[in-house]
């Protein structure tokens, strides 16, 4: 048991247990695996975490996490500066990058407007977005925000405030996902897909 393993191991287990996907039991297994493979896992992981802690920062322009300033996406001249994709968090940016379908730049809002939690516009990186969108280089702002009440409330708020800046504002389509079978979809998705139908 951890109680007899010494305070260092206990602390390691407790910290690992705070990570997403890990509970107390899986944290214990992870700690054991790290300690068993010190040279292959524990030491490199310690080094990688120290490096990440020291070097990774939020990009002052887009809010993405990177070791360089500006981040590698903002600094990449092959990307189209006229396209700006707005995402809720860095996870959304990574998801879009994984797909490789988008070659513009990003803006990480840092959350969503939330009536329930009282999160207002001042808590998000909205002023920074408006400044970027209004700098004359951006042609289109793509709102890649969640299809939830808060996500769409935020999208409407942004589109209203971007309206006067002379940029086109678009949002991601909502409907049947690739590989989705109709009889497995919820009523909301089917109804939304029907409303968004287009000529075949």
């Amino acid at each position: 048991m951890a109680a007899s393993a010494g305070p260092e191991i206990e602390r390691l287990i407790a910290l690992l247990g705070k990570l997403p996907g890990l509970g107390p039991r899986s944290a214990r297994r992870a700690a054991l695996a790290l300690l068993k493979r010190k040279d292959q896992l524990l030491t490199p992981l310690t080094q990688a975490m120290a490096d990440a802690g020291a070097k990774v920062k939020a990009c002052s322009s887009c809010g993405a996490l990177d070791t360089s300033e500006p981040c590698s996406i903002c600094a990449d001249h092959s990307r189209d500066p006229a396209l700006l994709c707005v995402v809720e968090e860095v996870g959304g940016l990574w998801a879009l990058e994984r797909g490789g379908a988008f070659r513009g730049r990003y803006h990480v809002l840092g959350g969503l407007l939330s009536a329930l939690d009282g999160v207002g516009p001042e808590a998000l990186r909205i002023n920074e977005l408006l400044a970027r969108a209004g700098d004359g280089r951006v042609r289109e702002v793509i709102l890649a925000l969640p299809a939830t009440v808060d996500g769409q409330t935020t999208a409407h708020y942004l589109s209203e405030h971007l309206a006067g800046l002379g940029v086109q504002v678009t949002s991601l389509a909502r409907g049947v996902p690739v590989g989705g079978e109709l009889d497995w979809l919820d009523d909301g998705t089917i109804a939304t897909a029907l409303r968004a139908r287009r000529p075949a």
Partner: protein
Amino acid sequence: MEWEDDAYVLSARAHGDSGAIVELLTSEHGRWAAHIAGGASRKMKPFLQAGARVVAQYRSRVSEQLGSAVLEPVGEGPSSLFDDPDALAGLSAAATVAGAALPEREAHPGAFYGLEALILALAHPDIWPAVYVRFEAGLLQELGFGLDLSKCAATGSTDDLIYVSPRTGRAVSAGAGEPYKDKLLRLPPFLLGAQAGLRDGDVDSGLILTGHFLEQFVFGPLNRPLPPARVWLVDRLREKNRL
């Protein structure tokens, strides 16, 4: 403890990696929180949002503790409102006010049916702000602070009721209220009957009226302000000249 009931989702929060804690407004059991196993899954997420209509099967071993629920979605849910920012603001305000005002585990069927009427009305932009005011008036009624609009508090007359006393919530007629009209709240006719119709400023008066009593009787004693969602809704409607 076990029950099955019709419900609307008021809010949902992630709990752990795969679960969620959901707050429901049920038809027979009132406001109730429950753990939803697998609430973070792609299958469950679409209806774990404010305004989603569900059938909830609730179960707990000890009645005082948080139990778990299985939710079956009914109908399309809030996605039908995604293209209407005003309606989204109305939905958020209603869910937040109901969640903050209603005590937990106390049956308030009137609040459930009031919310249902509002959610159905949200698809009709011309009428829903007035239905929202009626929803809040109904909520006050459910909480025991209902407005008494049946007759004039001063004269007993049932005619010309155009004011409400900010202290008692009772109607006041035009004649009796004239000397105090600056201190009285305006009573919009649509709160007296559905046939009264809507004029400019009526919804504004209604929101001022219900907001006053929500603050005075419900949120004030809890030392809390009106929920931000409600403030944002009023600001938004005012900004759009929809009051």
